[in-house]
């Protein structure tokens, strides 16, 4: 009669049923038998330096691999430190599975170490949260957790595992593993709605397809390609949808940027928005005039008419909706309209396009981005994290990779500090690709200590700091709102982050001049180490995202 403890059951389920081979977290006494379960079942652990990084890495793992990401948090402070990452995954609809320690149930209400009501705290930022009370039900609870994380619109879940069930053993034969993993299914829209959508699309003269994270989570590049190439509709992919078709696809109008999109969106006669929320970034849909016909595709029926009423709503996973829609759509050519959009975009972005080509002193952030892009190329993964920094990264980087350009701090939580964890997860998921994190100097501070994690685990990400010696977006917003002479908590000063990275065992460079950028990148990649290139950029430059943000708070 073989016996198994609760922690090993966790490892066994993860490996054998969900095929999980990597998890992210920090150790803790409450988790000990789970940690040993990881050893037993040969699951790789990436132990970080702050639990928020673990949650963010697991979230990012799901973005870069399409599989749920798993993190482990110890009871109490491990849990509370992870909350920001969980909230971020919740607002980003990422399938994050959180395994969380807990004070013993036996000692509830007695004042046990790290005793707190974690479930009530986490419930509003998870799709599902529960405590398992019975060692024999561990596989069942884990199965429910994964089902909730990945089913329908994905999102984070948390399973609390107390020592009462982890640190005891049970006869293994009494705890059978589910024989099948959770079934795959997809939701389909109504036939009449599909026909109505096709009719609008077939009659469109100036259409635009905009895809969001739903396109990315659907992993629908094949279906999207067929739809786009048959319908001839120009497209733009945003958030985690970016790169599902490459930025340089002939029908992509990615190069007109968010600015071009904002300016021209009202000129389209039909907008097809797939897996994209009309949230504050799209001014709750107000930037689309009522004359424009809107077709919305979303896995969540609640999104279809949210903020703006759609002419047709197609509920379902983007890939399967496109599978059904494409046969109803006529072969068409909208290349003239696409060229119009692109050339309007060039006029609107004229300044940025010139700055990319011009060496300047001090360095303009978009020039920094352009130089990185020129050196690293488009077969790489880029992440931008920061305020203004995030705008410049999104505008300037181009990639052929899926989710190849992600502004990790531009999600709904606007969560600074996500860049480094995303970069680490990207490098682990795609070790043969170059991974660049463009970090604001302020944002770098949140997870800069993770350079230690990168060094210990051999994760050679290159992090370029766009260093304006300030919380730039906030500083420039304060300049607009309260005036230059009353700036508060918005300046940081010159800090040698690259030295900190060297101290942690990574590679560091300090750059102040345009001509130093590319050689520094060369040396950083050649070092084979996790690297930080600290680049001093023009502190007076503001991105268009700042006044947008400023305006959104004006009452």
């Amino acid at each position, binding site marked *: 009669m073989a016996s198994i403890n609760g922690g090993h059951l966790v490892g066994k389920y993860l490996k054998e049923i969900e095929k999980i081979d990597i998890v992210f977290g920090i150790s803790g006494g409450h988790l000990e038998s789970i940690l040993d379960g990881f050893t037993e079942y040969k699951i790789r652990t990436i132990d970080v330096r702050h639990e928020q990084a673990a949650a963010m890495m697991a979230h990012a793992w799901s973005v870069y691999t399409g599989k749920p990401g798993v993190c482990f948090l110890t009871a109490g402070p491990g849990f509370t430190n992870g909350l920001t990452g969980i909230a971020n995954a919740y607002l980003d609809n990422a399938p994050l599975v959180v395994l969380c320690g807990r004070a013993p149930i036996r000692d509830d209400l007695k004042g046990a170490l790290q005793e707190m009501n974690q479930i009530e705290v986490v419930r509003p930022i998870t799709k599902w949260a529960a405590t398992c009370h019975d060692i024999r039900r561990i596989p069942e609870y884990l199965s429910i957790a994964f089902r909730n994380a990945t089913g329908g619109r994905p999102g984070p879940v948390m399973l609390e595992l107390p020592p009462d069930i982890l640190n005891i053993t049970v006869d293994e034969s009494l705890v059978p593993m589910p024989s099948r993993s959770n079934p795959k299914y997809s939701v389909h829209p109504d036939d009449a709605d599909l026909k109505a959508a096709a009719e609008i699309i077939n009659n469109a003269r100036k259409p635009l397809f905009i895809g969001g994270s739903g396109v990315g989570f659907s992993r629908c590049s094949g279906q999207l390609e067929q739809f786009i190439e048959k319908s001839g509709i120009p497209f733009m992919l945003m958030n985690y949808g970016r790169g599902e078709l490459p930025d340089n696809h002939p029908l992509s109008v990615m190069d007109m940027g968010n600015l071009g999109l904002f300016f021209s969106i009202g000129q389209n006669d039909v907008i097809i928005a797939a897996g994209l929320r009309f949230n504050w970034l799209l001014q709750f849909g107000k930037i689309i005039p009522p004359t424009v016909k809107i077709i919305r595709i979303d896995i969540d029926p609640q999104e279809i008419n949210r903020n703006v009423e759609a002419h047709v709503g197609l509920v379902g996973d983007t890939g399967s909706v496109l599978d059904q829609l494409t046969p109803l759509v006529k072969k068409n050519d909208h290349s003239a309209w696409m060229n119009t*959009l692109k*050339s309007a975009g*060039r*006029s*609107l972005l004229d*300044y940025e396009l010139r700055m990319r080509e011009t060496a300047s002193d001090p360095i303009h952030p978009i020039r920094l981005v352009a130089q990185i892009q020129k050196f690293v190329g488009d077969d790489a993964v880029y992440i931008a994290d920061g305020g203004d920094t995030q705008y410049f990264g999104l505008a300037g980087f181009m990639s052929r990779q899926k989710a190849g350009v992600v502004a990790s701090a531009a999600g709904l939580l606007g969560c600074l500090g996500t860049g480094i964890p995303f970069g680490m997860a990207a490098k682990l998921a795609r070790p043969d690709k170059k991974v660049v994190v463009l970090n604001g100097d302020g944002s770098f501070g949140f997870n800069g200590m993770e350079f230690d994690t990168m060094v210990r685990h051999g994760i050679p990400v290159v992090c370029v700091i766009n260093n304006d010696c300030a919380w730039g977006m906030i500083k420039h917003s304060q300049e607009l709102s309260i005036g230059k002479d009353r700036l508060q908590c918005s300046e940081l000063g010159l800090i040698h982050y690259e030295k900190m990275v060297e101290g942690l065992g990574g590679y560091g460079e300090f750059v102040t001049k345009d001509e130093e950028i590319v050689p520094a990148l060369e040396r950083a990649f050649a070092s084979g180490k996790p690297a930080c290139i600290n680049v001093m950029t023009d502190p007076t430059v503001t991105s*268009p995202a700042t*006044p947008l943000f400023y*305006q959104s708070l*004006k009452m």
Partner: protein
Amino acid sequence: MRFSILLFFLYKILRWASKHKPAYSNYIGSIHEVRIMIKTADGKHGRLFIFDKGAVSSRSGARQGYDAAIIWSDAGTGFRVMASRKDEEQFKAAAAGRMKLDGMAFFAQWFNDGVKLVM
């Protein structure tokens, strides 16, 4: 000439609106010093609009510093498109390379959206 006159009247209207049209004065709000230039590419015609803590002021000429600029290929196009007050005409001018933005492009859009509230 017509272009410069149009810019001058635009300034007068915006200044009036900043004092008498609550929707507009609320829109420009208490923003600190934003300077919008509207000019021709050759720099022969232009006017600077300054928004500072709810007040609108202006100076003629294309040589002053600005945060954002709307640059017309020529005065005729600038006049025609601005007088039409149509987004579509602006967009077409941009697509034809006859209207370009410089500097903080967002503010050019902000400026245009404000004008729409007044006209």
